[in-house]
C-alpha cells in the first residue's frame, strides 16, 4: 500500500520488441554491448551506427525518446570521472577552445562516454520493454542458479513492503519529535535500522512457513512458459549481429573519420 503502481522503468506495450522472449533480449543486449566495447575508440562512425541502431529499436518498441533520455541521467555519476580525464591524463596536448588538454585523455573520455551511454541506453530499452519479473524469468532460463533468481524475485516482491515499513518507522520517529541533526543522531537511526532488519528477518521466517505450508520443497514451480521460437531468436539476433558486423568493419577499416 502506498507504493507506486507503475514501475519506474517498465512501459507497458505490445510492440514487437515487447513481445520477444526475455532471455533472447538479454542475450541481444549482452551481444550488443560486447560489440560496442570491442570497437576501437578512434572509429567514431561506428559509434554513430550503434546509436542509429538503438534509435531504430526505440522506434520499433514505440518508446518515446524522452523516456530514454531522462533515464540516461543515471549514468552521470559514473561518467563524471570521464570529464576529468582530458585534464588529468599526460601525453601530447591539444588546444580545445583555448585550453590545452591531453589528447590521450580526450580519447579516453570519449571512449567512456560513448561506450557507457550506448550500454546504458541498451539496458534501459531492455528494462523498458520487459517487465521486471519476466526479466527474472529470462535470467533463470539462461541457467543462472535458481537461488539467485529466487532472491531477486523476493527482493522485487518485498522491496515495497520493506520501504513502507521503513517509512512508518520514520513517521513514528518524527511523530515523537525526532529530527536527525548531526552525527550523534546516527545512533538512533542505527537502532531503527537494526529493528528494521529484525522485522525483515522475522518476516522472512513467516514467509518461509507459508511456503512450506503450500508444499514448497526448495524449488520454485515454473509457472510461465517463456520458450522462444526460431523466428524470435532470429529477430533478436538482428541487433547484436549488426553491431558485431560494425565492430568487425571498424577493426578492418584502415581509415578514420577524424
Amino acid at each position, binding site marked *: 500500500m502506498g*507504493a507506486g503502481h507503475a514501475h519506474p522503468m517498465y512501459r507497458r506495450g505490445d510492440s514487437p520488441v515487447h513481445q520477444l522472449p526475455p532471455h533472447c533480449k538479454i542475450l541481444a543486449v549482452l551481444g550488443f554491448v560486447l560489440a560496442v566495447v570491442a570497437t576501437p575508440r578512434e572509429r567514431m562512425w561506428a559509434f554513430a551506427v550503434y546509436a542509429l541502431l538503438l534509435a531504430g529499436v526505440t522506434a520499433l518498441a514505440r518508446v518515446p525518446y524522452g523516456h530514454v533520455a531522462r533515464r540516461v541521467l543515471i549514468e552521470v555519476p559514473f561518467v563524471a570521472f570521464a570529464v576529468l580525464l582530458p585534464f588529468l591524463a599526460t601525453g601530447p596536448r591539444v588546444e580545445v577552445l583555448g585550453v590545452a588538454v591531453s589528447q590521450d585523455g580526450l580519447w579516453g573520455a570519449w571512449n567512456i562516454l560513448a561506450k557507457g551511454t550506448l550500454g546504458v541506453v541498451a539496458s534501459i530499452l531492455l528494462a523498458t520493454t520487459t517487465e521486471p519479473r519476466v526479466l527474472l524469468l529470462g535470467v533463470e532460463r539462461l541457467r543462472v542458479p535458481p537461488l539467485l533468481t529466487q532472491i531477486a524475485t523476493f527482493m522485487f516482491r518485498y522491496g515495497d513492503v520493506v520501504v513502507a515499513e521503513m517509512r512508518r518507522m520514520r513517521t513514528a520517529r518524527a511523530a515523537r519529535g525526532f529530527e536527525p541533526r548531526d552525527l550523534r543522531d546516527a545512533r538512533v537511526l542505527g537502532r531503527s535500522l537494526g529493528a528494521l532488519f529484525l522485522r525483515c528477518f522475522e518476516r522472512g521466517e513467516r514467509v518461509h512457513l507459508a*511456503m512450506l*505450508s*503450500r508444499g514448497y520443497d526448495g524449488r520454485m514451480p515454473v509457472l510461465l512458459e517463456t520458450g522462444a521460437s526460431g523466428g524470435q531468436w532470429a529477430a533478436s539476433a538482428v541487433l547484436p549481429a549488426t553491431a558485431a558486423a560494425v565492430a568487425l568493419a571498424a577493426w578492418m577499416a584502415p581509415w578514420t573519420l577524424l
Partner: protein
Amino acid sequence: MDASLKVSGLAYAYPDGTQALFGVDVAIGKGERVALLGPNGAGKTTFVLHLNGILHGGAGTVHVGGMAVDARDKKALKEVRRRVGLVFQDPDDQLFMPTVAEDVAFGPANLGVRGAELERRVAAALERVGMAHAAGRPPQHLSFGQRRRVAVATVLAMEPEILVLDEPSSNLDPASRRELAEILTSLDVTVLMVTHDLPYAAQLCPRSLVLSGGVIVADGPTHELLADERLLAEHRLELPYGFVVPQRS
C-alpha cells in the same frame, strides 16, 4: 463421525523449554465450521502449526481426513499440506509471488498440477473469493481486504480438506470483514477459524473451542459459550462493548 481433523493428546514444548500445549484433544467433523478461541499467548498458533506438521516432536497425534501427520514421512507430509489449507494472519507473508495468479498457482504447482488443470484451479479459486479480476496484478497493489481474500484463494486452489484461518478478521475494515464472512460461509469446506474476535466467531461458527493455557477448556455451541460470562472472564476473553450474542433458535 467422519472426522476432517482429529487431534489427540497433543503436547508441545519449544526448544527453549517453554511448554505451549499440554495435551489438546480436538475432533472436527467434515463440513463443520469451528472457531478456536483463546487469549493471546494461549497456544493457538502453536496448535495450528502442528496441523500440517510444521511443528512436531511433542507428544500426541494429529490426523487429517484419517491420515496421520508424521513429519518424518516427507511424502505423506506433502499430502497433509495439501489437505490442510493454512491462511496466515498477515497476507504479506502468504502472498510472495510477483502476481496474484502465480501466487494462487504456487500451491497446486508444488503438488505437480500443470497446464490447463492448473489454470482451471487458479481461476476457480479466485472466482470463489471474488478476485478473478485481479489475477494479473501484483499483490502489493491490492487493498488489505483484497489481499486477505487472495490469501484464502491460495489455499483453496489446493482443494484442501480443512481450511485453517489464523485471525481472519484482523485489520479488516467492516465492509471487508463482511465480504470475507460471506465468502467463508459460501465455501463447501471444513473451516477452523482461530481468533479472539468473538462476534466474528458467533457470526460464522456454530461451534467453538476455547484454548487457554495450552488445553481445551470448553467445547460447545458458540452462542452458549459466549453467554457464559464466567468462562470468558476466566480466560481473558471479552465481548466488545455493547455486543449482545444473538440467540439462535
